[in-house]
C-alpha cells in the first residue's frame, strides 16, 4: 500500500454547463468534500481528447474523472454520448497498459446536483485511495 505521505493526485475534466455548474452549486450550499481533485473546465465532455487522459496518467495522475451532463441533457446535444464512448474504449486501453481501469471514471452530474457532485468526489477519492498511487507515478517528470 501507499506510503503515509502519499496524497492522491486526481484530475477532473468537466463540462461547463452541467458538472462545473453542479460543482459550483455544491460550493454555494457549502457541502464539504475531500480536497484531492483539481478541475479543468471544458465546454463539453465531447471536447475531451483521449490524449488528455493518457497524458494525465503519463504525468503520474492517480486518477482521472470525466464528468458531463446526463444523457439527453448535453448542451451540445450529444457530446456526452461521444465522450462516454471514448471513455469506454479508453478503459480497455488502460487495462492493456496495465493500469486499473477504475482510475478513470466518467460520471454525469447536472447543474442542479450539487450534493451528487460531492458524493462523486468522495467516491472517486475513496476509490483512488484504495488503489494507491499510480504505478506510472515513478516514471513521471
Amino acid at each position, binding site marked *: 500500500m501507499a506510503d503515509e505521505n502519499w496524497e492522491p493526485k486526481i484530475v477532473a475534466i468537466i463540462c461547463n454547463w452541467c458538472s*462545473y455548474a453542479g460543482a459550483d452549486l455544491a460550493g454555494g450550499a457549502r457541502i464539504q468534500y475531500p*480536497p484531492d481533485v483539481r478541475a479543468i473546465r471544458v465546454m463539453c465532455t465531447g471536447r475531451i481528447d483521449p490524449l488528455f487522459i493518457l497524458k494525465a496518467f503519463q504525468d503520474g495522475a492517480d486518477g482521472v474523472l470525466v464528468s458531463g451532463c446526463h444523457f439527453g441533457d448535453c448542451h451540445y446535444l450529444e457530446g456526452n454520448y461521444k465522450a462516454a464512448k471514448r471513455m469506454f474504449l479508453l478503459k480497455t486501453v488502460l487495462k492493456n497498459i496495465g493500469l486499473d481501469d477504475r482510475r478513470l471514471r466518467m460520471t454525469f452530474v447536472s447543474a442542479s446536483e450539487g450534493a451528487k457532485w460531492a458524493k462523486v468526489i468522495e467516491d472517486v477519492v475513496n476509490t483512488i485511495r484504495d488503489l494507491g498511487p499510480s504505478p506510472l507515478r515513478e516514471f513521471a517528470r
Partner: protein
Amino acid sequence: MAEVKKNEEPRIGVFVCHCGTNIAGSVNIQEVKDYAASLPNVVVSNDYQYMCSTPGQNMIVEAIKEHNLSGVVVAACSPRLHEPTFRNATKTGGLNPFRFEMANIREQNSWVHMHQPEEATKKAKDAIRIAVAKASLLQDLHPKSVPVEKAAMVVGAGVGGMQAALDLANAGIKTYLVEKTPTIGGRMSQLDKTFPTLDCSQCILTPKMVDVYRNENIELLTYTEVEGVEGYIGNFDVTLRKKARGVLTPDEAEARGIVGGGCNGCGDCVDVCPVIKPNPFELGMAPRKAIYIYHPQVVPLIYTIDFDSCVKCGLCVDACGDKKAIDLEMQDELMTVKVGTVILATGYDIFPIEKKPEWGYKNYDNVITSLEFERLICASGPTGGKLIRPSDGATPKRVGFVLCAGSRDNTGVGRPYCSRFCCMYSLKHAHQIIEKIPGAVPYIFYMDIRSFGKMYEEFYYRIQDEGAKFIRGRVANILEDPETKNLYIKAEDTLLGRPVDVEVDMVVLAAAVQPSAETERTRRLFGVSCSQDGWLLEAHPKLNPCGTTTAGVYLAGVCQGPKDIPDTVAQAEGAASAASIPIHKGAVELEPYFAQCIEEKCAGCGLCVNLCPYQALSLVEKNGRKVMQVTEAKCKGCGTCGGFCPGGAIWMQHFATPQIIAQIDAFLLGGEE
C-alpha cells in the same frame, strides 16, 4: 487593442481575491500570492479584498499597463459568475479580453473545504498554477457579431405565455404564440375564482385572450407543437407541426377559394356528430363530440376534430353546408419560422394522485382533486356551478380538504417540494362551500398553511372567521362507507396530540403539481436543463430567474417551478423583457470558441464532419487536396470534433489542445513536492 507579438515571453499578472472571508477564511491568501509570484511567466502577483469591486478591477487595468502584461489570472469565485467582469477589466487595460483566465478558489475550494485550511491553500496554489499555464498560451480572440431576427416565439399559451406574448408584441416584436391545445388560456381558464380577491378567473382572463387574438404582432398558432429547433440566439429556426384540425378558419377557407366560408363557430356540426367522448377540459366529467370546442369562450373560436375518435361519417360536412369549413382529409402541416429569442411557458400537470392509494382517489367516488372541484363549482362547468358529490348527486354538507396531497412528500411516491398554491386555493374552496351551501362545514387537514403573498394571510384569517375547521395533521388514510359512500378521514391532530376520525360527504385532494407532459421533450429540443424534479432550470435562481443556460431561451411561469398567477404573470413580463433585449439591440456577440482547421495537419478524412451535431464542418478542396472547413456561425464550440481528430488538426479556440495539456502538466508536473 494591444497585439501581443508571437514568440514573446508571456507576462502574466495574478490577482488573488479574499472575497471578504469567503476565501480568506480558509485559504492563506498571503501564501498563495507569494507562491503565484514564484511561478514561471508571472511578473506580478497581488491580492485584494474584493477583486470584483471597482478598485479591484482598476488594479488589473493598472497592472496590465504598468507591467505590459500578456495575460491576466484572477483567483476568485466561479468563472460562471465573474468571468465577464474581469474580461471587461482586461479589455479596459488594453488587452484582448480573452487573454483572461479564472481560477475558481471559492465555489470549488474555500466553500467546500471550510475546515481544511492547509489543503484548501494547497489546492488554491494548484488552481492558480493551472490557470497561469493556460493564460500563458491564450490568444487574442474576436467575438462574432450576428444579427438578431426581429421576431420571438412563446411556447405555451396559458396566462404566462399570453402575457409574455402580449408584452413582446406591444414592444413592437413579431411574436409567434404556439399552443398545443386548440385554445389559448391554459390552466387558468379551468379555474372558477382566484384567491385572494375572488375574481372570476375567466372574467379576468378572457380580456387577455381577446387581446392576444386581436394583436397584430401576434401570430397565434393553436393546436401546434414544436417539432425541431436549429440555430442559436438571434437565429433560431423552429419547425412546428400544425396538427390537422379538420376545420378551416375563414382565412384558410379563403386561401382555398371558398369565399365567405370557414368556421364561424356556429356549432351546427356538433349537433349532428354521433361520437361522444369525455371532454378533457372538464377532466372527463362532461361529454364532448368528436368535433368540439373546449368551452364557449375559446380563442380562436374554431372547432376541432378529434381524428382519433372521428368515424368520418360526414354528417358534420353536410351540416356545415356552404361554409365548407370541414375537411376530413386534412393532414398535419410542418412549417419553419425564424425567431431571435424564445420563451418557454409550458406549465404544469396535476400529479397522478391515485399513486397514493391511502386517499382512495379513483377508488372512492366522492374523492376528487382540486381541479375537479374547480370545474364542479364553476358556473360554466358540467354542473352549472352546483357542487354535487359524484356518487349520488347530493349536495355535500361536510367536505374534507387534504392539503399537501403528494406535495412535501419524502416517501419517494409523491413530490418532495411544496406546490405553493394549494394552501391558498383550498382556503378559497372552503370559502366557496360556505358561501354556496348554507350550513356546510369545510374540514381542512394541513401540515402548515403557507399564505405568504400580498393579502394572503388576511384571506386566511377571513376563512377562519367564516367557520372553516382547521386540523393540523397529515391524513393517514381515508375509508369509505360502502352504503352511504360517505368518507372517514383518519388523521392525527398534531396540535391536540390525538387521532381524529372525521365523517365527511366528500373529500378534495389538493394534489401536487408536476411539469406538464410535454416539458421534457420541449426542453430537450431547446437544450434547456432541468432541476431534479423536472422543472426547467433558470440561469441563476436569484439573479437570472427568467434566463436559461441556452442563450436566447427564457422561462415564464410554472414550467420553472410552482407559482401562483401573480408570480407567473410577473415572471412572464420579466421573460418578455429579457427576450426583447437581444431583439432591440439588433445583434448579439457569440463567444469565439470556434473550431479552426490546422490545414497542414488535416488529412481530409472527414471524421469530424459526421461528429459535428450542427453541420458546421465540411470538406473542401484546397491546393489539390481535401481539408476541413468550419462555418463559424454554425459552430457552437463544443469541441466534439477537436476531441476526436486523429491528426490533432483541429484547433479549438480558447480550449486548444496545447492549452489543456499545459493545464494537465502544470497540475501534475509543476507543483511543489
